[in-house]
């Protein structure tokens, strides 16, 4: 049985439809990431689950019981805000103990719990520091400790790393993953960063304009995006308009870069064509070849990105760093296996 169930939830603010018919489940101990651009409704969804706002229609259930009449403070959920919302009038100890006092815990036990969670988030012994003097990373950890301290049934994190620098973010994502798994925490993690979502989550929900575009495991979403939006959001940018034709036992799709053969039986019609940037070869070793001119090669650590232009259409492909590639301005042949590298989306 799922821990949390969202059933056909919709929410509007004035004429803006923030959420349209959202449904999904979260299993006990599962970490679900909600991934989408800003304004897609993902933060609104958290405020609904937390009970800070009420859905216009639809229902939110916990263990099969509706939460509609349960106020925020009795839901037993945790919510970590984007800018942390630490209480500026309380020190670290008091910030973390805030929820514990309210649950009626004895002060001895509270002290122990605060020490424990501070150690868990990697800030042991900082109890009496003033929160106004903390660095961004420390604030993030204190906010996490405060959310974890009352052992919430569900922890929601709203872009918790959004305001931090990249290296800190990468380190904290790892730490966060460790902490959440260590405590078997059921969690919903909202972010616009696909790397964070993929690193942390058991399951990813991609949202756009208040609607769910795709739900799946990170690998599944990356290898088979359900829509051109998801593909573009995952920075799979080789998207072309095309049309599928059947002639002489052959199925092909015509695009701005020419005809590409497709497996037999692909239905005809207008489509979007996604050429995956990986699984290609910079020579003619695979069944189907493309000729173009290199415009740029950029080094990215253990891989490199090749930009080329075919018939005025820019494309990018990724190769391992040790692959020798021609310089900008040189002609190049890229080969690929259409069965592996080409994905089609129906155009409406």
């Amino acid at each position, binding site marked *: 049985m799922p821990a949390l169930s969202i059933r056909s939830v919709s929410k509007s603010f004035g004429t803006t439809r923030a959420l349209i018919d959202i449904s999904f489940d979260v299993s006990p101990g599962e970490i679900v990431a909600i991934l989408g651009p800003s304004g897609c409704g993902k933060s609104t969804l958290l*405020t609904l689950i937390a009970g800070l706002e009420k859905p216009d229609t639809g229902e939110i259930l916990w263990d099969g019981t509706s939460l509609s009449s349960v106020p925020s403070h009795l*839901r037993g959920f945790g*919510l970590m805000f984007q800018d942390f919302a630490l209480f500026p*009038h309380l020190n670290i100890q008091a910030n973390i103990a805030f*929820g514990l006092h309210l649950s009626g815990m004895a002060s001895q036990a509270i002290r122990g719990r605060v020490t424990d969670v501070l150690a868990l988030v990697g800030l042991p012994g900082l109890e009496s520091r003033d929160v106004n003097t903390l660095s961004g990373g420390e604030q993030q950890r204190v906010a996490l400790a405060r959310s974890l301290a009352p052992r919430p049934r569900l922890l929601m994190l709203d872009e918790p790393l959004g305001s931090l620098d990249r290296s800190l973010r990468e380190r904290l994502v790892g730490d966060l993953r460790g902490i959440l798994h260590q405590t078997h925490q059921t969690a919903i993690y909202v972010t616009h960063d696909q790397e964070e979502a993929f690193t942390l989550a058991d399951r990813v929900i991609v949202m756009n304009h208040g609607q769910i575009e795709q739900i799946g495991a990170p690998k599944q979403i990356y290898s088979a995006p359900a829509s051109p939006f998801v593909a573009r959001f995952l920075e799979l940018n080789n998207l072309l308009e095309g049309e599928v034709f059947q002639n002489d036992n052959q199925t092909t799709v015509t695009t701005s870069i020419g005809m590409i053969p497709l497996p037999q039986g692909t239905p005809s019609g207008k489509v979007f064509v996604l050429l995956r940037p990986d699984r290609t070869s910079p020579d003619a070793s695979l069944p189907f070849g493309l000729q173009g001119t290199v415009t740029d090669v950029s080094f990215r650590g253990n891989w490199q990105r090749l930009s080329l232009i075919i018939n005025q259409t820019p494309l990018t492909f990724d190769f391992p760093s040790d692959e020798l590639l021609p310089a900008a301005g040189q002609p190049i042949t890229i080969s690929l296996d259409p069965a592996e590298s080409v994905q089609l989306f129906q155009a409406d």
Partner: protein
Amino acid sequence: MKLIGQRGNAVAALLWLLPLTFLAVFYFYPLANILSVSFSRLDGSWVAPFLQAFTSPSILHVLGFTFWQAGLSTLLTLALGIPGAYLLARYQFRGKSLLQALMGIPFVMPTLVVGVAFNALLGSSGWVNLALMDWFDLVAPPIRFSNTLTAILVAHVFYNTTIVLRMVGDYWSHLDPRLEQAARVLGANQWQTMRQVTIPLLLPAISAASLLVFLFDFTSFGVILVLGGPRFATLEVEIYYQTVSLFNLPLAAVLSLIQLACTLGMTVLYSRLSTRLTRPLSIRPQQYTQRRPITWRSKLFASMLVGILVILLTFPLAALALRSFTHVSTGRDQTTAQSGFTLDYYRELTINRRQSLFYAPPAASIGISMGYAGLTALMAMALGLPSAWALARDQSSSFNRLIDPILMLPLGTSAVTLGLGFIVALDQPPLDLRASWLLVPLAHTLVAFPFVVRSLTPALRSIRPRLHQAGAVLGASPAQVFLKIDLPLVGRAVLVASTFAFTISLGEFGATTLIARPEFPTLPVAIYRFLSLPGGLNYGQALALSTVLMAITAAGMIAIERFRIAEVGEF
């Protein structure tokens, strides 16, 4: 490092130059003068009047009553003002700006007019008693309001609720609602969230507002005189009696000093508290913090509160306005009254009946008051902005800690003493202002100045230091940081402060009545002239002028609300 410190000191000195010069010349000099004149009339030792003040049971009773009524009034004002501030800060509803404009009116009404207004509503021949007597065939008025403690408390709440609404409401409207949401999610119910998060975060604004309210109640004069009757006397009233009726200037001076000492003590306490309470908050634009009341509970809360505020704050004024259009003639047996609509009182205002050279037609006092008020607002801002900035930029400076309570002194000083001080001190070269109309706006600025500082400083302090640093790093000088970062961020507070300065000037009566030139009467002075003359026509004209003052204030408040929305915006 040293260089920066020296430049910082130089900036601070520059900022303080004008405000401190002003205070020295127009506050300390006249005050010292009147005190020395008072004590010079003494025959024996200067200890005698102090002994008299601290041993006389009647004076001790006055002292006790002054504290007691001020404390009680402040508590009642907060009890109404804080929910009201919440309503204005967190909810958006139709007619809100009208409501805010209405709330501002009582504050500027001269105390005499308020006394008259409450009498017109609840007095023995007020509307309510007349109606009750009529409905239930009573012989005597059923409600006894005049000359009771209730009347004093109600009038104080009526006066000062707007201070809490403005100061706390403004601060509250910028408080990040996510802090409260965080508390809710952590398991706090609404009451716990309020007590443990919201109120502590609001404390700087609440304590600032409380101090002002307490000081106003503590130095209350007109309300006690008109509504309290002879049974009640505050220090200020006692000073007035001792000065004007008994001519015991030494005792009056001692009482003035006691009042000053109390003010100073409370202000020191407050500034100690405020530096400890103020925290850097991330302020949020109002559109992110306000919403419409949707649930039936919030609708009920909003409408009940709006109802209470409207009844308390507008009924007395409505009664007054209604009365200014009503011709009342009492029957011979004193129990029946005939009333009818009339415009006579207003028609009379434009006529100079006395044909006197020094006597302006009553309507002229409208223009005079507006001019004084505009000048006062300008001067109070010119002095208040640098002071508030100097206070906010360096909270740990010992000089600032010393100066902060001193700035509040004019508020706690008896207006009677101050008015006499102006007359005694500023009538000889090099400062011969006795015949100058400038005395009035100068005195008004003195009273408005602490107000401006008090409402600007918390707003300036709550700006995160990070923003100053960001501005400095981007190449802005301290002055540019102030102009381009602080000022836009506190634009609303600046507007609120100047509105207060303007309205304080419009309504000031105690000092003005002593120093105003007879040919340049302000509205309250003109109203008082009519009130002190016998006859229904004069009383009616007083009511009519009061109604005009009320209308000007309302128009001004509404204009400022509109101006804020159109021009200044939030951020």
